[in-house]
């Protein structure tokens, strides 16, 4: 009974810590994005709130919370109110299977540094990623606005298409690690990170992950010059903030999963494991921002062509080759 209570307490502490750290980092990721993107475009970026604009995320949060929370006339109220939460919650839940360090000993108890070590961790990530489509599609539909609806439909089509190549690109990794658990995938990268042997899978995963988190050049669901803001056109205040937050948490989660699957997770010399994971997540995020600062948005048909005619066949081919090589080595 005592160990059960202890385990429960440890669980709650871990959940709270991960949630808090994620929230803070997501808030500052917005700052990093605005600052770095500005430098890519020879601007300064936010520099008024605090030194280097470091208080900008705080100011934004205060603004979002104090703004009026409007629900448009004719909106499907229940779905309209719940959609942003779906996006944010699924994004947070995805991080629960990402390990951020090796097991540690706490008063004689073995505490794994992961919120939950699911043996089907990777499938859980995909399930949550698919569920977040509901947030986008329902949010767009429930707004009762043509821009919202168009954005929602585009979002659903895009995310479902890229889910496929996202999943298929990871099969070779699972084949090499012999496990769906993210903890064991990190264990399997003891000698070398998987990016060395699976560069193609890495590339496909990066492209699909950017499409999944709806970032430029795949931001068709919110394309501001055609759809105003797409599926979150009608949202204001903190509900819009939740969509925004979800997007940035999503970006970090994909950074985390990318580093776990291909870059060796928390492994690295000298520095503690959590720091290494954060560094890797940050590098992936910086790369995504760099892509945003460089590439223009794809056209809708280009997006679909890239997904169905290029990425999925390539991913399938990659699975075949990995399987064949694996057989030969055995």
């Amino acid at each position, binding site marked *: 009974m005592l160990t059960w209570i202890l385990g429960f307490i440890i669980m709650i502490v871990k959940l709270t810590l991960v949630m808090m750290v994620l929230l803070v980092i997501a808030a500052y990721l917005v700052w990093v994005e605005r600052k770095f993107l*500005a430098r890519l475009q020879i601007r300064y970026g936010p520099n008024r709130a605090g030194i280097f604009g470091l208080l900008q995320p705080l100011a934004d949060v205060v603004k979002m919370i104090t703004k009026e929370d409007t629900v448009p006339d004719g909106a499907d109220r229940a779905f309209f109110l719940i959609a942003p939460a779906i996006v944010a919650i699924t994004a947070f839940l995805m991080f629960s299977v990402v390990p951020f360090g090796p097991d540690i000993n706490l008063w004689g108890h073995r505490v794994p540094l992961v919120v939950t070590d699911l043996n089907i961790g990777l499938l859980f990530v995909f399930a949550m990623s698919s569920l977040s489509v509901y947030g986008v599609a329902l949010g767009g539909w429930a707004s009762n606005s043509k821009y919202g609806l168009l954005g929602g439909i585009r979002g659903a089509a895009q995310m479902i298409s890229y889910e496929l190549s996202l999943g298929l690109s990871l099969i070779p990794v699972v084949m090499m690690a012999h496990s769906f658990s993210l903890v064991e995938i990190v264990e399997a990268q003891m000698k070398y990170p998987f990016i060395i042997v699976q560069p193609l899978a890495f590339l496909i995963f990066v492209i699909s992950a950017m499409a999944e988190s709806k970032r430029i050049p795949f931001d068709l669901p919110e394309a501001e010059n055609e759809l105003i803001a797409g599926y979150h056109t009608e949202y204001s205040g903190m509900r819009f903030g939740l969509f925004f937050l979800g997007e940035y948490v999503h970006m970090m989660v994909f950074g985390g999963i990318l580093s776990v699957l291909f870059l060796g997770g928390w492994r690295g010399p000298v520095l503690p494991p959590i720091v290494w994971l954060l560094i890797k997540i940050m590098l992936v995020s910086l790369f995504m921002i*760099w892509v945003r600062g*460089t590439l223009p948005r794809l056209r809708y048909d280009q997006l679909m062509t890239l997904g169905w005619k290029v990425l999925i066949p390539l991913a399938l081919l990659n699975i075949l080759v990995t399987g064949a090589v694996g057989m030969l080595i055995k």
Partner: protein
Amino acid sequence: MESVLEAVKALASGFATTFIHIFRKPITEQYPEYKRPLPIRARGRIILTRDPDGEERCVSCYLCSAVCPVSCISMEGAEKPDGRRYASWFRINFARCIYCGLCEEACPTSAIQLTTEFEFSKKDILSFVYEKEDLLVDHQGKDKEYCFYRYAGVISKYGGKGEHIGEEKPVDIKTNMP
């Protein structure tokens, strides 16, 4: 295959361009700290200037008020004992003014002029109504030398008013008054 190579090359050059930009100094001007020197004819707050003798230039001809597209200028003309006209009150509503500069162009005496001052935003909209004492300044503005009375009504070598060939005697407009 060739098109793939071309696409990769194009992508690489794009990424290189943005990467180089990181190390360049941003071209943004940081406004409140750095104020760009404005050209002399930049259109900002309106003033009423004086002529080189220190007299008010405005002769209250109503031309600026007539030309103003948003009707933000109003005044009432009056006459000094020596016959020189002036505005007994002059009012500009800067909350309406669009700083188009048409009043300056219309003014025959260079009295009304636009300055480069533009930082006078306020929270109370009524405080944007500027009276004559707020508008009148003690200098000549952009036009240092000009004085209307040195050119208007001056007797030339061809004679005074109504003395040219075929010209009628001027009408005393005061006789038309009710």
